[in-house]
């Protein structure tokens, strides 16, 4: 059911992408994991729609950053991925969205949750058991996974995020960065097709945040795990993302490679948190100093400036 390969790849040996593509339940080979067509949604007792005609295809293996001002609909869109909308929240849903080939209108959240794992801002809200491995086991126990299989999946999930040595420790005794890795391991053990992380580094110090993004990025790069990161702080992950989707007022307003999206006028007008180096680059461009393609990292801007130093 899951799309992850059975073996964890280590070092430079990459798992070939073909292994990661499993047929969906209908038996069709499918490259897309999320497909939304004209998706609109209004919460109960709300007048304005939270989503307005969203069209979106996310391919397996992508690393998507979903951003936009608060209230733009990104959390609402994520709630569709595991069917909390409409199954839990009610409200009015128009158009359709399928996740791993399953329409959220026809499948329950418990079915969809087997394909989509969520990691939230604050790991404290997600972890509760008295040991790391019991926390990871919880989701599997609920699915009545046989003991041997459970053991195997737990060990593998812990390995993937580097927490095997913490297995007997209570999550509340761990640092924020370690807790967030436990939360990710809990999700990985369920072998999801898609992992959605909602500002997962908000509570972490900058070094722990960078380390976590590196783990998430390697899960995506080496194992092909489709990843959607909801994030405001684009400076932290502009170099990891393969695609940035910007939402505003319930609609997608920009969608493309980070470099293209950061350069677009629409995005600038929205005032999303472009990296400071990208802003500096823009200030130079506006004065007529062309520094080549838009920069998304400190290294790139330093290089461009160095090339143009007046001797």
């Amino acid at each position, binding site marked *: 059911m899951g799309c992850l390969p059975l073996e964890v790849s280590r070092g430079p040996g990459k798992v070939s992408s073909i292994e990661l593509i499993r047929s969906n339940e209908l038996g069709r080979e499918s490259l897309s994991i999320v497909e939304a067509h004209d998706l609109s949604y209004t919460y109960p007792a709300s007048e304005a729609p939270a989503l307005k005609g969203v069209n979106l295809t996310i391919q397996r293996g992508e690393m998507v950053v979903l951003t*936009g*001002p*608060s*209230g733009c609909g990104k*959390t609402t869109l994520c709630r569709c991925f595991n069917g909390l909308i409409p199954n839990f929240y009610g409200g009015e849903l128009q158009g359709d969205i399928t996740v791993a080939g399953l329409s959220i209108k026809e499948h329950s959240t418990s079915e969809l949750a087997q394909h989509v794992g969520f990691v939230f*801002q*604050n790991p*404290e*809200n997600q972890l509760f058991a008295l040991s790391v491995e019991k926390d990871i086991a919880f989701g599997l126990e609920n699915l009545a996974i046989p003991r041997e299989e459970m053991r195997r999946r737990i060990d593998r999930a812990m390995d993937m995020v580097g927490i095997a040595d913490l297995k007997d420790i209570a999550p509340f005794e761990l*640092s*924020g*960065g370690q807790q967030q890795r436990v939360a990710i391991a809990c999700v990985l053990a369920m072998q999801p097709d898609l992992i959605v992380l909602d*500002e997962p580094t*908000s*509570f*972490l*110090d*900058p*070094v*722990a*945040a*960078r380390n976590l993004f590196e783990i998430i990025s390697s899960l995506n790069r080496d194992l092909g795990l489709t990843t959607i990161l909801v994030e*405001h*702080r684009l*400076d932290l992950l502009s170099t990891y993302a393969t695609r940035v989707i910007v939402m505003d007022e319930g609609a997608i307003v920009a969608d493309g490679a980070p470099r293209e999206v950061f350069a677009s006028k629409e995005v600038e007008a929205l*005032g*999303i*948190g*472009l*990296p*400071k*180096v990208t*802003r*500096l680059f823009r*200030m*130079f461009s506006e*004065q007529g*100093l062309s520094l080549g393609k838009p920069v998304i990292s*400190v*290294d790139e*801007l*330093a290089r461009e*400036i*160095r090339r*143009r*130093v*007046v001797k």
Partner: protein
Amino acid sequence: MIEVRDLYYTYPSGVQAVSGVTVTIRDKEFVAIMGENGAGKSTLVKHFNGILKPTKGEVLVDGRPTTKASVAELSRDVGLVFQNPDHQLFSETVEEEIAFGLRNFGFGEKDIEERTAWVLSLLDLMRYRKASPFILSGGERKRVALASVLAWDPKVIVLDEPTIGQDYGQKEKLRQFVLEINEQGRSVVMVTHDVEFVADCSPRVIVMSKGRIVGDGEANEILTDAELLSRASIIPPQITQLLDQLSDLGLPRHVIDLHQAKTLLDRLVGVGVEG
């Protein structure tokens, strides 16, 4: 004024979170406290309104030891906004959440109404007046928590991780707002990991690591001290990283501001120079 004298705090679990901190937050100051997860930042600020009492040492609020006053009394002067709004919010509506503290401090109904309206519009929450805090997003709940404390207008406002879940526009609003309430004579203390936000605000920065204070100074000195920052798991702001990479070109150190960097780089690449 908050005076912390040789403070030690050990949690009931036996974890010593603060180990010998001496620091003074003067009236009208704007201070950021930074440091790695578990450095003791939140533990320290929880002493400012007496939620935590020192295991050893003392904390004085306007000369009064926190052990000699109730949390309610201290909170009137030192308002603490928690990191996790869910630890703070409990009312049925946003409006009631704001009114709760005011009522407890003995404000009259008319005053409560006015202050609630003031703070809700200030923080862009008016449209959620009748909504339950729990249907709001994380970022919105954080603003409700901030509003509920601001409403009674304490002299010192302590914000634990105020930028979490806030988008760029809201952060910019928060920055202006924090500078404004500071300008009006209130002290502002914020605990944060958000290096770029601190660079934009440019307050006094206290760096903690492993329960102690390891750095204390102006933002442009502290945030450009790579060695100090790395001890506390902080990554320098992008502007500082950029100028550091170009340091062989004769750029000055201690730069954290975007516009200052732009001026310096202009000279380097010949923007604005004729000829």
